[in-house]
């Protein structure tokens, strides 16, 4: 990777040069974070919807826990996953520590509470609006879940993006469980930390700008898709 004194020039040079090392890091970052978002969404969307639709003992505890876990420090999540996946830990036999899979697991733990808690809020709101009509049509509660999830899809897109933002910006957890291994588990954020520690501040900031650009791009595309659809569907 090349360096100049101006981080913006550096960022531009990095992008323009299509540096293969950088591309590898970017690809891995996206792969890890998108996989984590996908898995977390598959779990958290139904969970959030279920919490919105059913009243059961312990529901309050789950909601408070989820809300609290939204603020879970990434380092703590990382440390927990590290201790679980470590050879001396309960899941050590799978040998997942210092692999991208470990990073995905840590990110899932970080963003699942966010997606679940925000989904619950969105679905609860929509349920308030739809409740009488759906009951009038004879829709059972289990059936309301996919109906509400689908009809809330545009708000939920924003929710999922919030998860993606946290996943891709996170460094504390992936550093611990991934190990920042060159070419294997080095992602944008850990590369930024490494370059900062080398005193390559312009390069570090340049990488930061590339990351910011990526997150912006993903958000802009999602926003555009969402807004267009929202305007069309009312």
């Amino acid at each position, binding site marked *: 990777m090349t360096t100049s004194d101006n981080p913006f020039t550096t960022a531009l040079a990095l992008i323009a040069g299509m540096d293969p090392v950088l591309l590898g890091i970017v690809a891995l970052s996206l792969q*890890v974070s998108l996989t984590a978002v996908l898995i977390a969404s598959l779990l958290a969307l139904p969970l959030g919807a279920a919490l919105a639709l059913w009243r059961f003992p312990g529901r309050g505890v789950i909601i408070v826990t989820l809300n609290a876990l939204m603020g879970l420090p990434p380092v703590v999540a990382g440390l927990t996953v590290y201790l679980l996946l470590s050879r001396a*830990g309960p899941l050590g036999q799978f040998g*997942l520590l*210092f692999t*991208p899979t470990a990073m995905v*697991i840590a990110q899932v733990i970080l963003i699942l509470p966010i997606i679940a808690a925000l989904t619950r809020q969105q679905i609860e709101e929509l349920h308030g609006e739809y409740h009488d009509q759906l009951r009038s049509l004879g829709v059972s509660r289990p059936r309301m879940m996919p109906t509400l999830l689908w009809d809330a899809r545009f708000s939920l897109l924003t929710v999922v993006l919030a998860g993606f933002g946290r996943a891709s910006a996170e460094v504390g957890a992936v550093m611990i469980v991934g190990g920042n291994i*060159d070419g294997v588990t080095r992602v944008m954020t850990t590369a930024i930390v490494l370059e900062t*520690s080398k*005193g390559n501040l312009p390069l570090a900031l340049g990488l930061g700008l590339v990351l910011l650009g990526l997150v912006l791009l993903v958000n802009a595309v999602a926003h555009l898709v969402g807004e267009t659809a929202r305007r069309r569907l009312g």
Partner: protein
Amino acid sequence: MSQRPSATLALALAALSGAGLSQADDDYIVLASTTSTEASGLFDAIIPRFTEKTGISVRVVAVGTGQAFEIARRGDADSLLVHDTDGEETFVAEGYAAERADVMVNDFVIIGPDGDPAGIADAESVAEAMRRIAEVEAPFASRGDDSGTHRAEQRLWEAAGVEPGGAWYRELGSGMGPTLNTAAGMDAYVISDRATWVAFANPQNLTLLFAGDEALFNQYGSLLIDSARHPHLRHDLAQQWHRWLLSAEGQRAIAEFEMKGQPLFFPNALAD
């Protein structure tokens, strides 16, 4: 019954890793090492030569020496390359490592602001230099992270008969690079390994003020993890790495590594 959940979990995890995330090459070892070796670029220079010869790739997890020991103790690394001879010998004595060998030395240097307010540049010994810093209570940035460098710094204070403390002595709890960044920001003295210092790109007012005392030599050792304690590790491959580091070829690779025209590490495995 007790095996079923773990089998399900194994399947789920296998599916997860099957999502194209794990790199395919099977012949690799995980090497726990220190930030100084990684940040200097040494590994970028020597590992490709090892891989080319043996087909084994080396995945470096660069952390502080304390954390590196912990990773190895838990069985999460196949090999260990650190610079804390006392700690390494304890590690062997406790039975975690089967073997330890000297690999190379580099040296610690004292970095400080251009103006050298404590006047250490012409000190006779490192102990003298440390005493002068403490006397004028010039700002001093300590790693404070139980790393090899931090442990070395503590030994140097002890040898100088100084018990550091007070507002001028700032324990940062950071790696070498972040500590240098912080020291540059507050014009503080700091002890660094030479490799990280030479590779460091953000010195601002900092400059190398004192070096050369034998007490500043920094010995790196390679450890072979005990195979009985962690049978799952890739001991065969790790052993090849360990032997290669100590071989004439490995030692030459280390000697040939230069940064900004300076050799940074001096192989000394063959000297024994």
